């Protein structure tokens, strides 16, 4: 029984990882081996040259810097603004509370794809087209983040707030000094999900960015598949490079990713 379970697990893991190994293998092959027949998983000679090649052939460094700027800004803004709004919804009673919360829910129900067209028109009017600001600003905060942070703040016991108020803490200090540290697990979960989303985002950056020096990695890579049709080794090396940061951040934060996953499935 246990052996059968282990076998299923092994097959599932191999199925998940095999395409990555094939990509990695391709990125390390020489020109003559790329179309070798029969194909070889482990290259006879490891060729690191493809990595230097792709780095020099396209503005890979610029893509990396742009994607890092976009991702770091997106994570910072989403955490900051979601926790401000989530705090207000969880810890205050005010007149417009219900309608404003419904507005957040409405925003959650509107898919990005539906509104990109008027958003692009708006970004043009604001002279933010072809800029990283134009990529980040419209989706700097998402409704789901506000929702998550509201739950995290609502779970903090009343006594914490009372004690802080007795000590004379202002609402801003109550939020930043007292309560925000207590929501750290939720913040970490929100951070890893926002990171993965922003790093891999494609459609909106594709619409906004026009000049190659402003491209993010995903946009640059997608155009590379057209440019280097004859040199898939470069494309593969570029794809591996763009995946590395996600992999590293994920391994560091796997715990928080899983917590978010399981929270989402049980509510």
């Amino acid at each position, binding site marked *: 029984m246990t052996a059968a379970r282990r076998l299923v697990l092994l097959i599932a893991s191999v199925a998940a990882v095999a395409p990555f190994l094939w990509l990695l293998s391709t990125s390390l092959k020489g020109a003559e081996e790329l179309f070798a027949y029969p194909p070889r998983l482990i290259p006879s000679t490891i060729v690191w040259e493809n990595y230097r090649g792709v780095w020099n052939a396209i503005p890979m460094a610029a893509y990396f810097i742009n994607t890092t700027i976009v991702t770091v800004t997106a994570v910072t803004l989403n955490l900051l603004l*979601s926790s*401000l709004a989530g705090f207000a919804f969880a810890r205050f009673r005010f007149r417009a509370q219900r309608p404003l919360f419904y507005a957040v829910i409405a925003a959650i129900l509107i898919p990005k*794809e539906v509104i990109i*067209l008027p958003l692009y028109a708006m970004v043009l009017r604001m002279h933010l087209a072809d800029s990283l600001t134009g990529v980040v600003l419209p989706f700097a905060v998402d409704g789901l983040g506000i929702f998550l942070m509201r739950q995290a703040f609502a779970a903090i016991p009343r006594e914490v707030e009372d004690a802080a108020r007795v000590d004379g803490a202002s609402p801003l200090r109550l939020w930043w000094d007292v309560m925000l540290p207590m929501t750290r697990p939720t913040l970490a979960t929100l951070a890893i999900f926002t990171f993965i989303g922003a790093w891999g985002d494609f459609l909106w950056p594709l619409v906004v960015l026009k000049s190659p020096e402003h491209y993010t990695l995903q946009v640059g890579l997608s155009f590379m598949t057209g440019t280097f049709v004859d040199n898939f080794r470069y*494309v593969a090396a570029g*794809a591996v490079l763009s995946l590395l940061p996600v992999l590293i951040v*994920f391994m560091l934060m796997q715990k928080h*990713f899983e917590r978010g996953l399981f929270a989402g499935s049980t509510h």
Partner: protein
Amino acid sequence: MNRAIPYYFLLPALLLLGVFVLYPMAEVVGFSFLHYSFFGPHEFAGLGNYSRLFQDGDFWRTLLNSLLCVLVTPILMAVSLALALSVRHQVHRASGVRLLLFLPVITPVVVVGIMWRWIFNEDTGIINYLLSLLTVRPVHWLTQYPVNLGSVLILTLWRGFGYYMMLFLAGLALIPKEIEEASLLDGVTPWQQATRIILPNLKPTLLFMAVVSSSAAIKLFTEVYVLIPGVPMNNKTLVAFLYRQAFERFDFGYGSAIAVVLFALTFALSAANIRIMEDRA
């Protein structure tokens, strides 16, 4: 206490959501009633964009393709549930195995598309090579409809199965062990156990997955854009059609009508999923 304070906390987030999500939603509905090209002045079109849309063969074909993509949802759920049930209690200990299973879903879609375009390559791809060993003739994975749509679905299935399997395992872990053990003692068959105990207990997980997966499927774009870029529009999906009209032809009025239909579909799908689940309860 100052009554304005909560509003200061809300202002930045709600301002952004209002300006960049809610207002554009109103605008896209408005645009859909205009003859509005990026290059020219706009004028009222009434239902003109919609009647043009309903007579456009590409619209019906891409709509059909997007609905076919939604078929991946029940398959994905069945496959991952079967996997989860057969490896129960094994995965949770090994975080390395969980990492491997999560890898496809955390990888940027463009990278996934690049990877599979190489695997599906019709002349030199590994799949056609393996098929040739079985003396199967090369399959046109990328260029022949509807095979290429099937390739997109295979990619989607591969990308999601580990993630959904983990979701199911999390849901299964919440079912009290005593209930299952007691039911076995009462002589319940495994099939009865699955349908009467496990599935009803997994309802929140199933609902969550049905909504998330089907609304992602109806919006499929990047997978198609990277995997099968050169194929005719009628091989592609609704969002690819929207992208073509809006950002390659700059026909904003027509593109907006497509976006409104897309919104109606995602809304209907979520509502339908919730209804189906409630009826089964």
